[in-house]
């Protein structure tokens, strides 16, 4: 999985490209934890090019969501592919995460 990050003054946008699994979940955690440790606590994860996630990926997302919130920020998601959206529906995680159709909508929500 490839991770690219864009930042403006208040929001960091992290784009995930590939599959979120046992191995790449660690990479995501390292990237997002670093942002949070630098005080960049408002984060959008763009899933437009994320084709797969397993429960290890979901576990990491919940941990990062809790971490961002504990630092006074938030972690929101946008551009979910249908299969990923199903995963969030089946696991009731739509009740936790704020999910947006596109990046602009997610940015405007902060």
């Amino acid at each position, binding site marked *: 999985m490839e991770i690219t990050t864009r930042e403006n003054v208040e929001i960091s946008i992290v784009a995930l490209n590939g599959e979120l*699994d*046992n*191995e790449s979940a660690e990479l995501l955690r390292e990237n997002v934890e670093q942002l949070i440790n630098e005080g960049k606590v408002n984060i959008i994860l763009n899933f437009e090019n994320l084709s*797969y996630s*397993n*429960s*290890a990926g*979901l*576990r990491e997302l*919940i*941990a990062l969501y*809790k971490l961002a919130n504990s630092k006074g920020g938030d972690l929101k998601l946008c551009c979910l592919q249908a*299969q990923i959206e199903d*995963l969030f529906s*089946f*696991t*009731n*995680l739509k*009740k*936790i995460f704020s999910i947006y159709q596109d990046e602009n909508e997610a940015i405007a929500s902060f």
Partner: protein
Amino acid sequence: MVNTSGNVLVVDDDKLICNLLQDVLMRNNVSTMTALNGEEALSIINSSHSIDMVLTDVNMPGMTGLTLMQRIKGISPDLPVVVMTGFGTEQIAVKALLAGAYNFCRKPFDINEITTIVKKGLDLRRNSMREKEVIPFLKVQLHFEIPSDIGFVRSIVNHIQRECGRLGFPEDVFLMRVKLALDEALANAIKHGNKNDFSKAVGIKAEISTKKITIEITDQGSGFDISRVPDPLDPKNLLVEGGRGLLLMGLYMDSLEFNENGTKVKMTKNAQS
């Protein structure tokens, strides 16, 4: 070639060449159709499933023979394509072979050479079709015994996915359902069952057919009581980070059974569900 039955499509913008090849092949009991360009050839292939081989010129106005071959591979990957090249165009022939051409022949033709190539190509096609006839009755078993290393999961999934593809188990069912359940079951056995102890093995048995895949995964851990796993859908567990793997395995497969002490899981997915 008396016993050879097959339908060859000859594609050349030179009508004389088409007629010549048609005449030669028909005298060898090979049924032949002709097309004067790539578009016409594709139209014939799309409208008829009985073409067994394509013989195409490389240099044609509009769609070249190489482009035609690529388009044919997209429609019917197993259909043998022979490209006909002019003198001094060996590099194009090499390019065609690398791109998946069955063979090539040079113009001007050696009649014996071209009939031999066609005969062998039709034999290959016939054998390939016969092998495919038994695939619905084929069951393939894969058996892995791996150390408890999460790094092996992706390769195991890829091996099983490739075998499913070879047998014609629907790719979308695998990618959208089986892959996730298999991933979860393997991670469960390695991390929770064997506690990442490299000296403990995880056994994986997969039986694959066109209609169904059954996967059995066994670990060497102390087991667990499935009834005591917290329900991740319970609102009070929503923010609990783990515990969703079992839920997903059950949701994505048609059946999921654990043995009594939780060290073995057997799961099944039907192609049509």
